[in-house]
């Protein structure tokens, strides 16, 4: 007889803002305790923006594509960072618990796994804002380009890419729960596997036909196509928006389900006490 089959989540509908806030506080304490960590959040988005800013300036006079909208590459790199930082925000906060071998204490407290997930997502949003907003502001004096000129569509692009980052972060979290710190490198590298098909800097039509099918299954490809349409033609493509939204819901639902399944499996294996460096 396996008793584990009769277990059901207890009071699934109960989410305590206090416990979610406690976990958020834990990650904010951590961020505050180390200025190099905060600097690291700012550093890469700013460096990326500066690099692509100069590239854009060069291509403005050498490429008709870039000349059509001077900020297309800068907008792309900043929005890509939203997704990358969104995923990393979930994964790094998750990794902090593995590095500190803290899971054993956390899950003998009344903290529910889904409350932990909510705190990871909230922390991801904070990390994205800390990283990407200063880079966006820096681009205004440096290259006379403001991503905020995208207007309301920018909010849609931001949310859609952040949500995709969250979905990926949860899937990576599940892999970390399954394979431990041996899968740590996935947290840093996995998102780049999707970069070519996301068509960040070029239209999806550039891709081979077989890869285009994969691209259209990614919310990011719809967002970047939509972004270019806004910048080149001044049109917000609702079809791309809805496709990205639907895919995001699928990604997050899948990521959440896989994460909670992996969490349960970790309890089967006793990994919550053992996991760590």
């Amino acid at each position, binding site marked *: *007889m*396996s*008793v*584990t089959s*009769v*277990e*059901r989540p*207890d*009071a699934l509908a*109960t989410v*305590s803002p*206090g*416990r979610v*806030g*406690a*976990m958020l*506080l*834990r990650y904010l*304490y*951590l961020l505050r*305790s*180390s200025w190099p960590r905060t600097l690291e959040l700012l550093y890469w988005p700013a460096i990326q923006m500066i690099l692509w800013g100069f590239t854009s300036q060069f291509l403005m006079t050498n490429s008709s594509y870039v000349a059509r909208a001077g900020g297309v590459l800068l907008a792309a790199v900043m929005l890509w960072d939203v997704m990358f930082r969104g995923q990393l925000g979930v994964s790094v906060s998750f990794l*902090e618990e593995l590095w*500190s*071998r*803290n899971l*054993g*204490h*956390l*899950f*003998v*407290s*009344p*903290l*529910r796994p889904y409350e932990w997930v909510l705190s990871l997502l909230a922390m991801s949003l904070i990390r994205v804002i800390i990283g990407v907003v200063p880079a966006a502001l820096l681009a205004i004096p440096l290259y006379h380009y403001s991503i905020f000129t995208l207007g309301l569509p920018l909010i849609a692009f931001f949310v859609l890419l952040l949500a995709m980052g969250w979905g990926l972060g949860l899937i990576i979290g599940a892999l970390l729960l399954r394979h431990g710190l041996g899968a740590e490198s996935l947290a840093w590298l996995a998102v780049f596997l999707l970069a070519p098909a996301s068509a960040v800097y070029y239209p999806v039509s550039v891709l081979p036909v077989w890869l285009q099918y994969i691209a259209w299954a990614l919310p990011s490809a719809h967002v970047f196509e939509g972004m270019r349409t806004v910048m080149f033609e001044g049109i917000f493509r609702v079809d791309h928006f809805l496709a990205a939204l639907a895919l995001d819901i699928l990604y997050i639902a899948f990521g959440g389900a896989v994460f909670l399944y992996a969490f*349960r499996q970790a*309890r*089967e*294996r*006793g990994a*919550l*006490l053992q996991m*760590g460096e």
Partner: protein
Amino acid sequence: MAFSIISQAGVAAHPGSAGRPYVEDCAIVDRASHPVIQVSGLRKHFGDTRAVDGIDFIVPRGVTAALLGGNGAGKTTTLSMLLGLLLPTAGRIVIFGEDMLRHRYRVLPRMNFSSPYVDLPHRLTVRQNLMVYGRLYGLADVEQRIETLGSDLQIAEFLDRQTGKLSAGQKTRVALAKALLNEPELLLLDEPTASLDPDTGDWVRSYLEVYQRRSHATILLASHNMGEVERLCSEVMMMRKGRIVDAGSPRALIERYGRETLEQVFLDIARAGARFDPQAAAQ
């Protein structure tokens, strides 16, 4: 083989009871009728390995009990299942009358846990760690509770120091502070004084005695420190290869095995691999 501490929770297990047996016996019956932990048919298999192989026991309210056994006996696995960190292969765990496999979140706020093998985050200060856990347990006035524990456990002077920079003894006291934040009615401890010097180990044991007396909490600890178990525990379950092979008060076990110390009993059980046979000993 099933062991019930209730049936063995005699007067001898409670040294202060000798002069007032009737009252003490009543108290024992009262506690026994409301067991804090009830475990039946508990198993945990990892593939072919039977880490816990069908154990049954009951721990009454207000008792300090121990799971005693060598490395790999199944003590930590049992504690992990009681805490809900590890799902059993089979069996039932009832704590405070609630089925832990179905309603663990009703129970977790009333219990806590400490182990030298599970760290608190190193980069956070002691105060920050306690603040986070205090909020996880939903304490009304976390700061006041931290101040109280800081004073009680003599950790006030390093509340604002990073947890990772503390000595082993200081970390143990901080871990104990975390475990006592919610004033648990049930405290589970995994080798609470492992790797501590004798002085610090004695201090921790004294504190646990004081806490138990003051709060009437139930304490279950896993240990292979015989002196600790003899001093703290009124009931002992001896584990070997995932099974409880004997149980009783330290004094009762020592007498049953015809030994002078609990350590000798432990060695008998660990080496014989079976429950002691008093008749064979008499011959």
